[in-house]
């Protein structure tokens, strides 16, 4: 074993260790999604076509949550709350409830307050079938909401593919992914 090979192996090991530590706990993929033409209800109780929320230009970050979710949604929403200040002027944040019958506009407002949501972060509920159609379009549908996956979707601009992050994300990771989107 030469000194040089020991050095290379050590360098590789260090790099490997660093990579492992930096390993995110989510899986990243990209897909094109056809948004269903449904009308949802926002936290003020107003009917809003989903297209109107998603079509304007600018990056969008979207998550599926429900307000009585014990562990995962608070994590996802805290990450979004932590990142919301630094996402840039044009960025829009959207949280869609997968328990629309319980998550009335009033409950969404309370949830938004809990996470100190700013004006660019919208919370949507609606009729059960419409919300299910949106979940299915995003591949986020489960028979029982407790089996839902922690999912965050990002899109740089209308017409672009969506980036899908499956797993827990931190605020820092969300910001990094948003910057990565912008850099394309």
């Amino acid at each position: 074993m030469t000194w040089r090979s020991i050095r290379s192996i050590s360098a590789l090991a260090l790099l490997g260790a660093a990579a492992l530590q930096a390993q995110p706990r989510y899986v990243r993929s990209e897909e094109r999604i056809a948004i269903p033409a449904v009308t949802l209800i926002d936290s003020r109780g107003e009917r809003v076509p989903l297209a109107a929320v998603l079509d304007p230009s600018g990056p969008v970050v979207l998550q599926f949550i429900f307000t009585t979710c014990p562990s995962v949604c608070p994590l996802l929403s805290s990450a979004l709350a932590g990142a919301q200040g630094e996402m840039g002027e044009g960025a829009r944040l959207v949280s869609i409830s997968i328990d629309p019958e319980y998550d009335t506009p009033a409950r969404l407002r309370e949830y938004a307050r809990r996470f100190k949501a700013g004006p660019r972060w919208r919370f949507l509920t609606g009729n059960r079938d419409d919300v299910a159609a949106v979940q299915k379009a995003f591949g986020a549908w489960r028979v029982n909401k407790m089996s839902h996956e922690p999912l965050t979707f990002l899109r740089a601009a209308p017409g672009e593919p969506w980036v899908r992050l499956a797993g827990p994300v931190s605020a820092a990771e969300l910001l990094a992914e948003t910057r990565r989107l912008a850099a394309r």
Partner: protein
Amino acid sequence: MIPLKSLAAALLLLAAAVPPADPELGRKIYQEGIPGSAQPACASCHRRSGFGTSEGGVYVPRVTGPVLFQPRQLRRADLFRNLYQESQTPLYSARVRDPRLRPAYTPETLAAALREGRDPAGRALDPLMPRYRLSEEEMEGLTAYLRGLSAVPSPGVDGETIHFATVVAEGADPGRRKAMLDVLEAYVRWKNAETRHSAQRVGFSPWYRDEFQGSYRQWRLHVWELRGPVRTWPEQLAAYERAQPVFAVLSGLGAGPWRPVHDFCETAGIPCLFPNTGLPVAAPPGVYSLYLSPGLTVEAQALARYLSGSRERIVQVYRDVDEGRVPARALREALGAARLADRAVPPGRALTPAFWKRLMGETRPAVLVLWLGPEDAAALGPATGAFAPVRQIVLSGSLLGDPASVPSGLHEKTWLTWPYALPGHEEPLIYRVRAWMRARGIERSHERLQLATWFALAVTDHSLTHVVENFSRDFFVESVEEEAENALNPGLFPSLSLGPGQRYASKGSYVVRLADGAPGGVEAVSGWIVP
């Protein structure tokens, strides 16, 4: 050498200075969080029972007393659902299969776990578990609380039997009582036969069933009849519970207010699942009382939502009993007293054509809302002429029972609040439940009631398999919260689902019109309204 006297004095001082561990402080921290801290409370992920969750692809392990203060035990039956019966991500499946053996926690290693995120085997805890800042006093209180958390089985279960009760209020219609009890008794008999069959196969298990031997119990149903004045009901319920504690109260039949039973369930900490009552306690939601629907309250609120667009004058008439007062108040609160005029009629007073003529003349409503039962509805017939200037008459589908009770002359202008699924769009499961009832010789005399009763039993059955041998009432309730959504809807309501802290499985109502040709005689005029 330290003089013995001084040493003794010093020790006494020390003992006096250290306050005893306060499990009540521990409970507050566990359920509500560290005072002043923004970090999530333990119960928000580990749940009130301490049995954790497997929600959202994240495995939150158990932190009950027996689990924490013993070395890690690997019991496949306990994790059966997490291992095999849930659709989960690969990361989750790997985590659940990771043995993570460790010795029992001690107060010191528990403190290290909470403050530094290390388990007693030196392993780092999941990064999703927060690291907490706890004072010595807080740590001791929490440790004391955790030692006792779900440490003993709940009352109502012994080595062989699990006891359930059903509550029947005096004044309940005898036909409905029989219909409900037929379903309850048949299910318990059927369940016990299956259990006996499985329990005979100890040691012979070509598949996994043998691992559940310890969890099998014979079900025993007790009927708690409530008689006499309502104010004596709490006393009667307490006496029943003292005579034979039960693990949970299933289904049940109300006649009038359900609140006394609800309050008993909350005080005694007994899960009370899905009673057949139109008058559940609508707010605030309880911990242990679970309902199929908010009942008449949600019918009134949905109607208010449907009528909110117009400015028409509305008059509502109701019998001055709970079945009338509760929806009337809900409608008044939702629409505002300015838009709505009320007329309360004492029970027993006949609603004559003269009464209606006078009322219509005085109030001239465009919309007449009647919180009335089938006899009063039938008596509207002779007064049909008085209703000519009224645009719409609205009755409650649940109070009415059969839409055909409405006199045919009024069908054109009659709507009903309809908190059920629409007829003609049956859930597939309804056919299986009907067949099950037929096979057991149960007369399908009150199908709505019987489907609701079946649901309470089926959810209990499924939730208990998840609980395995951990007969904790809190864990059972948490299990029911998850199971309610799992394809057990026999079709009485469009959908049934609960969640952590949710207490009404169906949450809305339709407004329908009478349509003689349509299935069930009704047709929706609104969508499903969730107020």
